[in-house]
């Protein structure tokens, strides 16, 4: 798309949810239901070592003793965990060794999603791991990255090729028993990405995973683990879409980040799972646990999320700031329209001295949707000189939606300083009139103003995705302006 096209024009050309198509491909499915045999089945499919199977089973047994959390401000019918397939994979005779061997139907799917996987067509400077239902189907630029010492592959592959690294870090940030969904994920996770950036290397490419749920009646339980060794840097982006269906589907992912001394991880998400239709039928339940451990001195983790999809979102990307001078940042744009519900925010746990955190959250509620920012800032007694700054702004569009702000701020150190500000209002009529007077139509005017409202967050995205995200912001609000 030519860069000259204005956002407004592009918005018109796009369908409301252009990723709603389905790929017809032969799929291998595990039988419906969840039990130890299914877990053994998944583990066997992935040819996993014994320790991992044991790890999964232990998590499963613990999960059986847990109950679903109910504290979030989201409402949905009880999920029947037995009524889903926990493994779905495109049937391939032999595992593809290179992109040339990948089923062309799959390549076409990703092309349609705007993610060409053939390297000559792919975005230069962005390596992609494509996860289709339960398996990673392709990873681009793998060779080039390997030469530099960067490991970027499916986690199932990493289990085989780098067992020591995986065993050392898996579950070290989000232990299996952390919460109901993380525990479920630990038992049944299928695929996801693994990244290891060696000491001192600034990974020159953006790494990206594109998650696609295709099969009906499945859940997606990916697991991502990113380790940045001393002085290393990586920028990682995940995107997600799913076909338009009337049934709800569960997505319960776990993402663990580990930043060692002087390491920096930038993790960006553009979450655009199918949100359900205007009446609230269908859509993804997005129950995700994302957490970063800033273990090293001067380490830094930056979460950016643009959340426009899913019927229900429950997600709190967090930072445990252990290392002295470590920094955690959370930038979020969440847009809910129609009947969507989102309960999202972050946790910043300050443990080390002079740790700093910054939270910028922009919530936009429209239609009949409900959105909650839920955040925790905790300053532990040892966190001398810790600093937190939080800014949460909510914009309400229409008088049938809800916007809620629920921050928890716990301070146990007198030398720490925390600042929290939150506002809620609707789009100013003065701004709207100003835009209309200059000839913009109301929908474009709202798109423009909302993009301005989100600017501070959107500009933290890698350039390649910032434009896409801006368009997404405008599209997500379509139909919300009367």
């Amino acid at each position, binding site marked *: 798309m030519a860069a000259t096209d204005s956002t407004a024009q592009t918005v018109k050309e796009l369908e409301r949810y252009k990723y709603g198509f389905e790929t017809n491909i032969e799929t291998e499915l595990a039988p419906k239901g969840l039990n130890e045999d299914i877990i053994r089945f998944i583990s066997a499919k992935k040819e996993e070592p014994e320790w991992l199977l044991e790890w999964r089973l232990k998590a499963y047994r613990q999960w059986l003793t847990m109950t679903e959390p109910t*504290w979030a401000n989201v409402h949905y019918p009880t999920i029947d965990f037995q009524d889903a397939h926990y493994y779905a994979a495109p049937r391939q005779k032999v595992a593809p060794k290179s992109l040339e061997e990948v089923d062309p139907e799959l390549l076409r799917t990703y092309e349609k999603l705007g993610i060409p996987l053939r390297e000559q067509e792919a975005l230069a400077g962005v390596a992609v791991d494509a996860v289709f239902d339960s398996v990673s189907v392709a990873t681009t630029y793998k060779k080039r990255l390997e030469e530099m010492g960067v490991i970027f592959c499916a986690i199932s592959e990493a289990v085989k090729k780098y067992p020591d690294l995986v065993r050392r870090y898996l579950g070290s940030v989000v232990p299996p028993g952390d919460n109901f969904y993380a525990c479920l994920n630990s038992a049944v996770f299928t695929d996801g990405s693994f990244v290891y950036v060696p000491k001192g290397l600034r990974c020159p490419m953006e790494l990206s995973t594109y998650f696609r749920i295709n099969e009906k009646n499945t859940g997606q339980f990916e697991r991502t683990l990113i380790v940045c060794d001393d002085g290393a840097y990586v920028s990682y982006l995940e995107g997600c879409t799913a076909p338009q269906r009337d049934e709800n589907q569960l997505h319960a992912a776990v993402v663990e980040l580990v930043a060692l001394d002087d390491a920096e991880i930038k993790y960006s998400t553009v979450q655009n799972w199918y949100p359900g239709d205007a009446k609230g039928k269908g859509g993804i339940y997005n129950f995700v646990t994302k957490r970063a451990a800033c273990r090293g001195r001067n380490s830094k983790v930056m979460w950016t999320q643009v959340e426009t999809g899913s019927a229900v979102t429950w997600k709190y990307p967090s930072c445990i700031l252990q290392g002295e001078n470590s920094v955690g940042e959370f930038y979020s744009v969440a847009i809910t329209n129609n009947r969507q519900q989102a309960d999202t925010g972050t946790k910043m746990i300050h443990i080390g001295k002079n740790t700093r955190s910054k939270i910028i959250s922009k919530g936009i509620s429209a239609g009949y949707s409900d959105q909650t920012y839920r955040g925790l800032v905790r*300053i532990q*007694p040892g966190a001398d000189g810790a600093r937190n700054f939080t800014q949460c702004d*909510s914009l*309400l*569009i*229409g*008088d*049938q*939606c*809800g*916007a*809620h*702000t*629920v*921050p*928890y*701020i*716990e*301070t*146990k*150190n*007198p*030398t*720490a*300083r*925390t*600042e*929290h*500000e*939150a*506002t*809620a*209002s*609707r789009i100013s009529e003065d701004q709207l009139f100003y835009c209309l007077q200059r000839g913009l139509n109301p929908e474009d005017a709202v798109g423009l103003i909302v993009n301005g409202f989100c600017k501070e967050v959107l500009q933290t995205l890698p350039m390649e995705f910032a434009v896409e995200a801006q368009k997404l912001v405008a599209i997500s609000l379509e139909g919300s302006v009367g």
Partner: protein
Amino acid sequence: MTALSLVTVTEAAQAATPLTDAALTALRNEGLTAFTAHGLPTRTHERWKYTRVSPLAEVSFIAAPATGDADVVRTAEGQALDVPGALRLVLVNGRLRTDLSDAAALTQAGISVQTLSDAIAADAAAVRSGLGQALALADNPFVALNTAALSDGLVIRVAATTQASTPLHLLWITAPTAGAAVLVQPRLLVEIGRGAALTLIESQTGRDGDSLTNRVSDITLADDARLTHISLHNDSRQARLLTALQARIQRGAVYDGFALTLGGALVRADLRVELLGPGAEARLNGAYAAGTGQHVDTTSFIDHAAPHCTSAQTLKGVLDGTGRGVFQGRVNVRRVAQKTDGHQLHKALLLSRGAEVDTKPELTIFADDVKCSHGAATGELDEDALFYLRARGLDADTARSLLIEGFLDDVVELVADEPLRDALTAKIHQWLESRS
């Protein structure tokens, strides 16, 4: 968690003061049932997340005796607010002592002051309708317990259009019995008629000794009524004080509240304010200081249930030693409440290691044409300001005291009336003196 002794004492109180009115008797029973069913709140109750009351289960409470000595007033006076000219009503262990009160307080034109039991005897239905229901018994165990014990306390009614020229000062004195923990559960009903105005001052004081004061206030403001409500919590260092206030504010009425908390081992204020008619306004400002062994919790819920209402809440706290401060504030804007203006601010100063503050300001908004905000900040004294003062020749302690005083006085400025402001700043000053 069950707290047997609280139940036993309350049951005894019920037996000792039978009510003839069936509705109120039923309400009492409802309260007792709710309390026994739910027991003491634990930290899994969101609203009690930061305040532990489970140790109450270990205490053996007795009913507070009717204490006779006039001496109690002298001790209390040192702790209470000093507002010259205010008409004073003294309540010892929840019971009005006319012998110790200003006689004029009971005979003002347009202002009726009765003990709760007299008010019930005169018109039980009127008392019943004055009891708020915003703090539902099932969710508020201490309100349930207080309701179960309903008999001690006071009813103040200001007739329509009456402009009370003199403030009323309620001096609550908790007088423990040596060697035992007393339970005091008074109830205060305040009804301000249409277009009427009153300034109500409350000082909670107490003598040394183990006690639990569980006080509930029900406040009703009719259209265009105005209540200036100043409260001081300055109980003894062992005292536990749980207060709950539910206020219903009608069209055009203004509730202007300010609470200062300085004394008490455990002080918890539950504030529930409902803005029920256009133009209603609530201010819930306050300041607190907590040193070693003190826990001060303000939990508020401001419900915008009508359009064009305003609420503002600024609370500042100073935490010293191992003192702990809690602020949980929720502003709820219902779908009908367009044009709401709601603002909330909490600032805390931590003076020492071991001090802790937990803040949870919360906005729940269901209308779009609103201006709502909240802010929260915690930190230590500003080093630059300290240095500035020292560069002007002040010693470090004086400089710190001055800054702390300034930090708290700043919020007292929100009280419009000067004598009231002076009374509050005098107490803050007294606290600072006692600290050094």
